[in-house]
């Protein structure tokens, strides 16, 4: 009898678990893996002929990647075939549903690692595109978002895919190196969602550019950040400004700094650690921003014949290194002021440090930022990488 009671309790608990887990539909998402086509990459554009609509292009894995609805983008150099399918609709979900209906297999967005947004679409504002992406339960929030500079995202995928194979694979190789390129930091879906949530926050998303390299030879390049005001694309920051923005946000993990010794010979240092402290104050009706950056580098390469770690040489190098970083940061400030956007994430710093004053300033934050006074201090030190003396015969005439 006790056993019977226990079983009843267990089954009631089980019922409760099922009910509270939201298992209401009969369709329980059961799909065999071979009946699915995984989408590797999504391109979003404004429809060419109907500006109020959007065009969604999906890159599928080649071979069995799709049936007859799209164009095969060829094998390219790396041999990985891809298949592009596209549809137009009033909304992302409408276009996606059309693709789903026309495609032979079930489309799954769970493995779309990248979302490309065309320049025209980005210029209209990101909100309509990001809404579907943020609500869809298949899409990974860790997927990266890129803006395509100077062309439509679908065209970028098509042209690059024809020459080089799967765009997503190539992009993956490039995106993995961004840690070494201090001017780019990948921006994920969840980060874009965060930026959209905060109206005062200036949005910056890395952009991709197609580089023509002779007949039918194209390559892609990541050069910096696309800058947004009120969710709409306004400008592209160049490499220097983008790098300076990364110093502000403390997202520099590596990168080279070129300097010269007292005789003008080239010396290259590599950033091994960079810490930035940003203090934003509101005094006498103006914003004052104090930035203290600490840079730690290692000697990467030297053409100098001098002992760079003697005080007189070392101080010269460090002074140049400090000035170099300072210039980058000031360049970022200039870019930010010119475009009247908070691309330096100062709003966040200020909100954290002065939550009460923030409430008064948040409405006119970007205007106040234009008149803000910046004080940038950089201190750095360099470590020797190896103790070889013979390589450059320094100390010898």
């Amino acid at each position, binding site marked *: 009898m006790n056993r019977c009671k226990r079983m009843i309790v267990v089954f009631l608990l089980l019922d409760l678990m099922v009910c509270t887990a939201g*298992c209401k539909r009969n369709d329980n998402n059961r799909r*065999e*893996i071979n009946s699915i086509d995984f989408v590797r990459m999504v391109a979003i554009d404004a429809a060419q002929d109907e500006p109020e609509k959007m065009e969604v292009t999906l890159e599928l894995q080649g071979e069995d990647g799709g049936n007859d609805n799209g164009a095969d983008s060829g094998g390219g150099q790396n041999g990985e075939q891809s298949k592009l399918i596209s549809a137009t609709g009033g909304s992302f979900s409408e276009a996606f549903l059309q693709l789903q209906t026309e495609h032979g297999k079930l489309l799954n967005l769970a493995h779309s690692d990248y979302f490309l947004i065309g320049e025209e679409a980005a210029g209209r504002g990101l909100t309509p595109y990001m809404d579907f992406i943020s609500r869809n339960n298949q899409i990974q929030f860790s997927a990266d978002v890129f803006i395509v500079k100077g062309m439509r995202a679908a065209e970028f995928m098509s042209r690059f895919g024809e020459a080089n194979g799967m765009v997503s694979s190539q992009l993956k190789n490039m995106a993995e190196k961004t840690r070494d390129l201090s001017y780019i930091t990948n921006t994920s879906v969840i980060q874009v969602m965060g930026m959209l949530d905060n109206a005062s926050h200036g949005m910056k998303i890395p952009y991709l550019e197609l580089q023509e390299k002779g007949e039918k030879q194209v390559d892609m390049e990541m050069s910096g950040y696309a800058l947004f005001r009120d969710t709409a694309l306004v400008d592209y920051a160049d490499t220097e400004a983008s790098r300076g923005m990364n110093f502000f946000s403390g997202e520099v993990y590596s990168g080279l700094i070129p300097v010269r010794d007292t005789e003008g010979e080239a010396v290259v240092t590599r950033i091994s650690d960079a810490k930035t402290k940003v203090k934003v104050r509101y005094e006498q009706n103006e914003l004052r921003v104090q930035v203290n950056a600490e840079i730690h580098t290692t000697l990467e390469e030297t053409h100098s014949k001098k002992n760079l770690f003697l005080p007189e040489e070392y101080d010269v190098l460090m002074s140049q290194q400090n000035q170099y970083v300072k210039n980058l940061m000031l360049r970022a400030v200039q870019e930010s002021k010119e475009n009247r956007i908070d691309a330096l994430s100062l709003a966040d710093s200020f909100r954290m440090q002065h939550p009460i004053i923030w409430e008064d300033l948040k409405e006119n934050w970007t205007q106040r930022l234009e008149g803000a006074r910046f004080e940038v201090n950089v201190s750095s030190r360099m470590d020797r990488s190896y103790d070889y003396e013979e390589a450059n015969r320094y100390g010898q005439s």
Partner: protein
Amino acid sequence: MKQKPKYTQTEDVTLFSEEQGRPMCLHAESIKQFFEKSGDVLVRSVQVGKLEAAVFCVDGLIDSATIGEQIFKPLATDEKLQQAENETQAVKLLLEGAAQFPFVTKETDVNQVITAVLNGLTAILFSEIETAVLIDARGFEKRSIGEPTDENVIKGAKDCFVEVIRVNTATIRRKIKTPNLVIEESVTGKMSLTNIALVYINGTTNRHILKEVRRRLQKMNIDGIMTSGYVEESLSEKPFSVFPQLLYTERPDKFCSHIMEGRVGLLIDGLPIAYILPASVTMFMQAPEDYSNNYIFSSAIRLLRYFCLAISLLLPGFYIAITTFHQEMIPTELAFSIQKAKMNVPFPAFVEILGMLIAFEILMEAGLKLPKTIGQAVSIVGALVVGQAAVEAKIISPAVVIVIAFTGVCGFTMPNQDFSNAVRLWRFLFTLAGSLAGLFGVMIALIFLLLELCDIQNLGAPYLEPLSDSLSSHIKDTLIRPPFRYLNWRPFSVRSVNIRRQK
């Protein structure tokens, strides 16, 4: 000579049914008549001086040469015996050394005499006074002590239990020489009259546990103990559970270490294994070699064993869940690899996994039933030839073969076969649950498993102890094997009277 009580008989055991009839008195003629149809039972009359006696024994259970030399010869030639005036005097002389054996006892109960003789003793019957002198002159063919076959030894004693209970008790005595070691014997089985020995250490083992084990042994009302299942089911607290509640071992060193921890041991005549109780889940995950090797290495191996347990139990269900419900959980490259491997396979993942699991079980069963040499051939044909052909014919995907092979190999790391069998059965349940509701189903099955394990109490000790314990000191020797210097206390689950093991 100091007489040693040899046999105690449980109340439930009756030698003869009413239909069979029984000799009413301890008389040579009536016993001869009773056993007249049994060719191996010998009742031979001998003349002891002027007295009549009979030697009563079972051929095959006695050492004939020894009996001839040390029983028949003294009976016929010993001067004192020849001069005995009456049977009482003859019995007295035999007990005082005329019979040249260490274990000589006097018995007047006909049931006890017959039981003793059927157990291999030799009885010298004196019919007038209805008395028998029981002499232990057993000698029969038995397997010699060799290496354990199921529990491999690398760094440890290379002996194992055999089918003869007396050899096993001697092996234990050789390892535990404390006078507190008690080997309490009884007879169970209405027909088999099997000797059972309860082994424990007085002053260490909890008497309530002992009392309960004795009660359960006495409660056993069966014809005979031919296989281990009789005992296991009778002594288990929850006989309907698939999880073993008695730990068996064929290694005396493992048995003795558990006895010294305060547990109760059980030896059964005819079985080359010994039982240890109460048993908990963690005991089934421990191997004797854990205590022979370096503690860091042993801890790593033990953790690996727990990992293998999880894999063996969950992997098939988990595979189905992630490939049919949660494809987003699979790393991208792996998802494509699995997808590519599954192209053109006509069956859903559940059917593939279930089919392979059943095929695996069939191969296991076939390998066990066949002679060892052919058993290997079955594995080769089954796993390699048929498996390879099935993959090439696109009947199953290679990923499923890998999953099942890995699951099977992980299952083999379990030190205890009973526990491994339980895991094998539960694996099917997890597979079904994963197929029905994905990871949600797997989690529900996991909850059911935990409920089942929590529900088992073994002689007052929770089955999950010490994992269910809140005191960290009790959990020491579970997931890892700590150095011996930290094992100062006996396991809490045995509720030992003498809780401190060392200082």
